């Protein structure tokens, strides 16, 4: 098989597999599990074969009109994103099988779960703005049934909110996408910007600023930037495998990914640096960091607290991106990867807690750590990493972000660096109080909540252990991955 054709296999395979599962008559749970896991593993293998084979090329599926084409290709950024996602998906599935148990709705659940894998791959491999936009919308649509899985009032409402926010945002982003596509003749991503040689005459400064802000907030909806972030905490009404993989990693990171594509590969940082749009983007991302961290401290629902923390951390990435320097992109990229790893492990631990105790509030955690020692040990590792304690991978990305902020100079970047440290304090409060409650409950024995705790299944523990190991390994040996990220940030890949 020729390479370009192989490129669309990881996109098509899960979609076809999911459709087949959806229209087939009911299957026993075990058969569904085996089927889904096999497809996901094959898919990941294909992705890794593509990445490791080192071939680069593009494949145009079809052209709509002259400039509008659906085409895919691999470059450094897409390789990074797809590689990360394809590592996580099979592990998350393994966890999901034990978490979901047996239920009549599982067939639908797993088919949409699988379909969103293919769609995320499509988003990662997309070669131009129109393709990116298309998969962006598809990802929204395919995850709505996952949010409303429990079909109760709360989750149905969460699904509606989710759809309203994300589809509206994408519509906003559609305007700059078409503009750029027409003006550049195809809109194929190019490091450093589409208009490197000369600007079209009728594009004034104000129009560029407006277009960038449209796309920043439009694609930024998935990255939960401040006024548009309410959907994310609500979406934790979904089952934990969805919250963990989609709403801490895949969906939200695809928002960040899209903003990166827009900023560094379409508009170009040189065009935007120093403009009003950069100032606005920086201001909003800095505000979101602090605001979401404060909200997380206030929140008493375990998963919603983590969701607010995701909002805060996504803004770290947006802050890095909107510095418009190579260092900023490096910081954003490394936080994209490391935050994914950390947040996965935190959410999966929260899921084990909820699954094994049937409780979901922070004040119900008192003393549970004694019954679920491994789970909460992994949680603590994740928490320390998220704060930015050296020795864990969160430190590496914070280091990159802060150095970028300090080196960029100027008021807003330094303010952002200070806000980063401030939110790290808040992060210590909202994550560590949970582990302290779990291991050393502050109240007397009456408030001990660890009486009825089931033992977690092995299949749930394996993924969290893998993520904890990755967390420590990448924290101690960041040189295994950082040179690669630096190359991407410099446009060498």
């Amino acid at each position, binding site marked *: 098989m020729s390479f370009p054709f192989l490129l669309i296999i990881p996109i098509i395979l899960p979609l076809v597999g999911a459709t087949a599962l959806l229209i087939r008559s009911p299957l026993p749970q075990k058969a569904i599990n085996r089927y889904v896991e096999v497809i996901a593993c094959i898919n990941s293998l294909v992705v890794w074969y593509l990445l490791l084979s080192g071939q680069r090329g593009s494949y145009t599926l079809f052209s709509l009109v002259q400039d509008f084409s659906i085409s895919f290709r691999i470059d450094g950024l897409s390789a990074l994103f797809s590689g990360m996602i394809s590592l996580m998906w099979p592990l998350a599935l393994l966890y999901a099988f034990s978490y979901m148990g047996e239920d009549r709705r599982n067939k639908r659940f797993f088919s949409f779960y699988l379909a969103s894998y293919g769609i995320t791959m499509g988003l990662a491999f997309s070669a131009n703005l129109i393709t990116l936009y298309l998969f962006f919308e598809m990802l929204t649509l395919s995850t709505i049934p996952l949010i409303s899985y429990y079909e109760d009032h709360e989750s149905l409402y969460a699904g509606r909110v989710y759809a309203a926010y994300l589809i509206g945002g994408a519509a906003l982003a559609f305007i700059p996408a078409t503009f750029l596509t027409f003006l550049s003749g195809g809109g194929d991503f190019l490091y450093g910007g589409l208009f490197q040689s000369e600007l079209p005459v009728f594009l004034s400064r104000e129009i560029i600023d407006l277009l960038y802000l449209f796309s920043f907030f439009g694609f930024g909806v998935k990255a939960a930037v401040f006024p548009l972030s309410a959907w994310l905490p609500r979406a934790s009404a979904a089952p934990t495998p969805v919250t963990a993989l989609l709403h801490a990693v895949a969906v939200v990171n695809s928002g960040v990914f899209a903003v990166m594509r827009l900023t560094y590969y379409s508009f170009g940082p040189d065009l935007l640096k120093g403009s009003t749009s950069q100032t606005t983007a920086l201001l909003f991302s800095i505000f979101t960091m602090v605001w979401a961290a404060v909200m997380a*401290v206030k929140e008493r629902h375990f998963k919603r607290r983590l969701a607010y923390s995701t909002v805060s951390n996504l803004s770290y990435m947006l802050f890095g991106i909107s510095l418009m320097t190579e260092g900023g992109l490096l910081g954003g990229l490394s936080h994209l990867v490391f935050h994914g790893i950390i947040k996965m492990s935190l959410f999966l631990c929260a899921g084990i807690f909820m699954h094994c105790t049937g409780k979901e509030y922070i004040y119900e955690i008192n003393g549970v750590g004694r019954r679920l020692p491994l789970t909460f040990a992994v949680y603590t590792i994740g928490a320390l990493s998220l*704060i930015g304690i050296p020795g864990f991978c969160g430190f590496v990305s914070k280091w990159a972000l802060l150095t970028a902020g300090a080196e960029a100079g100027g008021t807003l970047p330094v303010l952002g660096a*200070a806000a980063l440290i401030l939110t790290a304090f808040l992060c210590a409060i909202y994550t560590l109080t949970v582990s302290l409650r779990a291991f*050393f409950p502050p109240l007397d024995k009456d408030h001990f909540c660890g009486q009825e705790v089931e033992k977690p299944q092995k299949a749930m523990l394996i993924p969290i252990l893998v993520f904890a190991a990755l967390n420590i390994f990448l924290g101690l*040996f960041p040189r295994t991955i950082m040179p690669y990220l630096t190359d991407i940030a410099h446009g060498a890949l």
Partner: protein
Amino acid sequence: MLIALILIIPFASAPICYALGRKNPMSSCRAGVLVTALEFVLTLFLFQGDHSLSLPSLFPGGLSLQTDGFRAVYALVASFMWLCTSLFSLEYFRHEEKGLNRYILFVLITLGATEGVMLSSNYMATFLFFEILSFSSFTWVIHEETPGAVRAGYTYLFIAIIGGLVLFMGLILLVSDTGTLDYGELHQILQASPPGGRTLAAGICILLGFGAKAGMFPLHIWLPEAHPVAPSPASALLSGILTKVGIYGILMTALYPLAACPVFGAVIAVLGVITMALGALLALFSCNLKRTLACSSMSQIGFILTGISMYELLLSRGESEAAFMTLSGAMLHMLNHSIIKLVLFLASGVVVMNLHRLNLNDIWGYGRKGKPLFKLSFAIAALGISGVPAFNGYLSKTLLHEGLVEAAEVWGNYSLILKGAEWIFLISGGITFAYMLKLFICIFVERNSSQERQASFDSAPSYMNRISGTVIGLPALLVFILGTPFAAKTIGAYMSGSPAIGEFSPFTWNNLKGGLISLTIGGLIYLLIVRGLFMKGTQSTGKGGSVYCTGLSDALPPSLSGLARRFEGQKLLSYCGQFLFIIGVSLAKFLDRITHLTFLLTIASAFTKFICILPDAIIVLLRTTAVRERPVMGEKRNRTDHMKALLKDNTEAFRPVLMNFSFALMMTCVGILLILGALLILL
């Protein structure tokens, strides 16, 4: 190679010891002793030749470690203290085996991390190991899991996090300014071009970050809380070595990047003098054996910081000879304090092990009879720390004092302030003597007011075994040896790498005078204040029937009438003296309150409330105007109800946070940080 071994052995053996202790906790303790002994032997080899270890690929900045005089001595001191405390643990934990293997696990991890800090030669290595030991020593504080221990543990943990993050910020500023984190390179770069405002800000961040662990004002709050609740061997380590880890970071900053920077020196001097005086006062007022020792540690850290600042001030005026003499003094005082606190905390461990009590009124007269080794060791350590001539503390304190005097001469414009600092120094030294005298006389000289209890103290058959006796006696002997000028000079010159200390003659009249003034002040304070004001006589019994006031609030009369009664009662003191004293006590109480609760809580809770109500206010505003939520089916809510519900939810959610002292503290630091950020932007 040797350094790698020293680092790997504790980290690798920690989980093994943990696993060993799952069945029989004592066996993990024994394995811990073996590991620390091995570590001790390995650190002895550090004195042979130069060792270095560089791992450039391990971290964002790369790790590098090396040895020199100071580092080698402190690596040895660390492993020696670990060896002594783990030998002592064998007896101390005999009856309390719960969680012992967890304790040993973290003791060994902290050992590895401490050696890492003490041998580090770039900021990255210092920072990494510093954070590891911050978190691993948290489990020592919380070990007994009583409510008090948990509370102290929370405070300790959050202060450690604050310190770590402020330090992080400082390092980022430093690296963005100079591009390197290696001590040597930083020294060269900043010698060539004098440090600007940004580097200074970085230095102050670093100072605060390390100061949090050293127990420096204003981040000392964890120290008097955490030391008394930890098991005694752990408090010996916390006080003797972990505070020195913080000092190590400050010392490295003063030696390399910000050498001869007078502003930085002045900042350390101010904070150091406050720490010194405040710690001494708190120790004087304390009525708990371990709390007194903990506050005393804080005060001694202040002495060391003052020494470091005088080094900076002298060096910036080109007085390198005097500067290095002061530096040797500061290093010697670190060493002396480590060893003295080892003896004293282990001695308090003996008391805890036998009586399970720490209040002075309960342990009154415990050491009177039949405990000669215990008595002698305690006495030597007490004399050492009070700076009595012929003991080690006298030498190092005299060196520090000399530094202050020289600095006052050199900095003519500021000589008045420095003279003031010198007097605070002498008075703090006097208070040190007073509270050590208070402890010694209370435990070893006077009789307990209850006859039966005194009898049970005197007739107790054995109070510690031979091993424990050795590990208390041996460091006490060291205290004695370090008190000889020859030993002190040799070690001081070796540690500071400069022969300046060789010309120091400790027993001239000029030097003796300072010590004697200090001791006289101390004796007076003991006789007049401690015996006069802190002891409350009970009418029923005659001699020896008095008790110490428990804490400061007890010492101060509650109302004015009480004040008047006290004036009548204390005829020995002149009214004037009393008046001054009461002002002093009130001031100290005020400072105590400031740094403890009232002040912090008010500011912090106001700030917290503001920052937390802000998002709610925005939401309420939006909900009531633009984005009105659709009512849930069948439920009717009007606007005010909605707002009320939201606000109620807010207060309820926030109550536990506002009640939490650590959180309040954190928010204050957030405030400090905001101000710092604003300053940075202005700079």
